[in-house]
């Protein structure tokens, strides 16, 4: 086994275990762990199954098989970032709605808070 193979096996296995542990401790919600888990499993499998990696790499025209691992990693990072942008947009919308509803409730109940000036 080459050093780069060992490195990618160790790194993806560590990432996989870390994500699972975070979910187990409820520090990471399941819905946000799926892409991380999928990405680390794919990289781990391709690192262990050298012949699969070489086969796929050659099939898509990649000469140096480990660079296919980088490609997979980058693609998963892109997916995760898009997922975050969508989530932030959703939270933004929910936050706005809540601020508006709170404001209307304060007015109808004639409540003023110390922050209201």
């Amino acid at each position, binding site marked *: 086994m080459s050093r780069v193979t060992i490195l990618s096996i160790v790194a993806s296995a560590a990432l996989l275990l870390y994500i699972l542990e975070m979910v187990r401790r409820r520090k990471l919600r399941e819905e946000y762990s799926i892409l991380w888990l999928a990405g680390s499993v794919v990289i781990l499998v391709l690192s262990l199954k050298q012949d699969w990696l070489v086969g796929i790499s050659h099939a898509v025209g990649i000469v140096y098989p480990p660079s296919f691992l980088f490609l997979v990693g980058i693609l998963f990072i892109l997916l995760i970032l898009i997922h975050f942008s969508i989530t932030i947009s959703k939270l933004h919308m929910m936050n*706005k709605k809540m*601020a*508006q509803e*709170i*404001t*209307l409730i*304060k*007015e109808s109940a004639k409540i*003023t*808070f110390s*922050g*209201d*000036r």
Partner: protein
Amino acid sequence: MNPGMEGTSPRILVILPAYQEERSIGGLVRSLRERYPYDALVVNDGSTDNTGDAAREADAIVLNLPCNLGIGGAVQTGFLYAKDRGYDVVVRIDGDGQHEVEDIPKVLEPILAGRADAVIGSRFLGETGYRGSIPRIFGIRFFRLLVNLTTGYRVTDPTSGFFAINRRLVAFYSDHYPSDYPEVDAYILMHRLKARTVEVPVRMYDREEGNSSITPFRAVYYMVKVTLSYLINCIRRFG
């Protein structure tokens, strides 16, 4: 007259979004209340000065947002209030004294007569004497072109924040109102709702107090963002 408005006089709400306007909001609300029997609603967009208190002392209904939502979110809060309380017509006017309170009947008249769903005050119609900075005029021309090409409306002042709308648009905007320069986006929304719009000439003054929110960098950013938002609103589904 719109259906359901015959017999009783329509309930009219004037919405004034205000951010850091403690020095001008009180006088503005008072001049409104002296002239008209309409309710004045100040939406205080998370000001850190005494905008909310000043407005309340002047006998406005005050909505104090817990944080700054930006102009679109603040105005939408006003629309939500109007919808909840069953107002027939909403007038939206700037809270910084840029618009002339005396022009309110001009933006109300076509709606009350049932000739329009939305009436927008334009500083470029007639002899209103408006002089804007070159970038501002450029931005307005750009949006004018965008709106006129895509909707078939003949708009002169697409960024005007002085307008009146009827219940139907209030209800729609309560669910769908854009965040920055909402007035430009509102045209594509109105077009898609097949709303009847009319522009009327109004006066517009330079700001008396407070600072305009626009810097050159933000101006470019907003132009790109509003254009994107506008074009997406052309193809968006509204459920």
